[in-house]
């Protein structure tokens, strides 16, 4: 049997087949470093025009395209018919396609997102209830690190469908908050004090000018809206220190920040009713003490 098998192998190994095999191996051996070099050259050229994120995606795309071309060329050397291969790939592709619709959706969404440049690695984004720093933008998903150090993977499809806020897109931001003062306050003095506090704040930008305006006459207080610009790096420090400074300064200037309150007006009829209720209450008290 062994002799028969050996004979079959020897019959199969013909000089033509050895030539084909050598050509196949040569294509791979020469082609592999060649496509690596080609990829490097293309990326060196494209790198001038792309940001690091797009560069990473483009590099992967070009690499896999070149690799497919190389493998197809190598198989062609072995005598595989490309049309048959593509036909088989087509059938295989349909099967794979049905099985991986979500992945393709994410892939296409990823392509659109990268071309849109809504955010890049290092930006702080908010999507739904999640806020975090972008760690990477990949073909299928975006990875975030939240401020309490959780790793979150968001599929690209979700990002394309949802409203996304890029918190750190622009170099400066405005911190907005409201503060209420009592109705008996001298409003012009309050405005002056708020402006002085903003002016003295180390993190607040002088320009664009801060906003100090009365927004409404609330149930318990007159409410001022304050909007102060700060660099995105100083944003939280600015917001925090301003609130502390304002609180301290209001206390020093005797400007009251009122608690929620209700004013009760008592008419004569209500007064009589209260008197009756008090009489009943006192009589009940006396009775209980005698018992």
């Amino acid at each position, binding site marked *: 049997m062994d002799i028969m098998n050996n004979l079959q192998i020897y019959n199969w190994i013909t000089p033509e087949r050895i030539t084909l095999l050598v050509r196949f191996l040569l294509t791979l051996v020469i082609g592999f470093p060649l496509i690596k070099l080609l990829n490097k050259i293309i990326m060196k050229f494209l790198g001038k025009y792309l940001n690091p994120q797009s560069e990473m995606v483009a590099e992967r795309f070009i690499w896999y395209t070149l690799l497919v071309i190389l493998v197809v060329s190598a198989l062609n050397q072995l005598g595989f018919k490309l049309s048959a291969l593509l036909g088989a790939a087509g059938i295989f592709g349909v099967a794979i396609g049905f099985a991986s619709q979500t992945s393709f959706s994410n892939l296409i969404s990823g392509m659109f997102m990268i071309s849109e440049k809504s955010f890049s690695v290092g930006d702080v984004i908010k999507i739904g209830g999640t806020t975090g720093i972008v760690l990477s933008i990949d073909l299928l998903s975006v990875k975030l690190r939240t401020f309490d150090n959780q790793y979150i993977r968001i599929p690209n499809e979700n990002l394309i469908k949802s409203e996304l806020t890029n918190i750190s897109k*622009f*170099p*400066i931001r405005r911190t907005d908050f409201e503060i209420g003062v009592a109705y008996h306050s001298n409003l012009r003095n309050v405005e002056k004090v708020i402006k002085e506090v903003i002016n003295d704040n*180390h993190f607040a*930008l*002088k*320009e*664009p000018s801060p906003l100090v305006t009365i927004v409404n006459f609330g149930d318990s207080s007159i409410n001022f809206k304050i909007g102060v610009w700060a660099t995105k790096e*100083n944003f939280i420090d600015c917001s925090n220190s301003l609130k502390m400074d304002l609180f301290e300064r209001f206390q020093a200037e005797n400007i009251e920040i009122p608690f929620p309150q209700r004013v009760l007006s008592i008419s004569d009829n209500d007064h009589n009713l209260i008197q009756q209720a008090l009489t009943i209450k006192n009589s009940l008290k006396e009775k209980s003490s005698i018992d």
Partner: protein
Amino acid sequence: MKIFDPMNFQENESKKIKIHRLEFWLRYTGESWELSYHYQNEYDNFSIENNCSFEPFKTEKWVFSEPYPTIFLKPVLADKPVLTEFKNPTSVLAGEKICLFEQIPASIDIMIKTPKKEIKLKQLSIIPEQLTWLGDPLDGELCYHDTAEAVFNEKLIQYQSGAIICPIIINNQSNHTYPLKQLVIRTEFLGIFIKNNQLWTNMMKIEYYGDDKENPIDILPLENTVQLTPPREDIRQQSRLIKRISNFRSFIS
């Protein structure tokens, strides 16, 4: 100027130095330098107080393997452009050429001298720095804000300790009045000089033809002066920056 002369410290010696609103303490322990500083509400002249107690406000410490008892102060311009708002806005009439003198706050580099080189320990501004934004919120530039009085006669300058006088020539070659409310001093292109025991920068010369035209700006050397600090960036060698600086709007807004 005496304040910028090297100072030799004995072991465990402290000195208190006041420049404008900045008050700081330096202590040398033999193997380390300690610095503590704060800003006063009112400004003061230059003063050095020897053998005083070290007040721990914001304290920093630098440790060395070798003893380096010599320290000196070096005046430098702020690390960002300074946007100065004039207390009394002035207009430059069409066809007029004026020279204004503006004082901007200096920063101080605290340097130690080693046998091989000079090492910067810390840079401190002589006043607390106030940030502002120049230009569009989308792509403007972060600057320091300052309020100053524009003086148009050199003899009328009331020099404040620690300030640097910046002489600026504006030649209004347009056919309309130019309102001068604020001015941006691009500190990176200016050097510091000593003239009459005062700190000066290079002279800036602005030819104004109109907002929609090219308005060339020259940085000129000061005559009869001693250069103390060279500019951080050489304007002649940086074509990209020349384009940026040649925009008159980046100087006056």
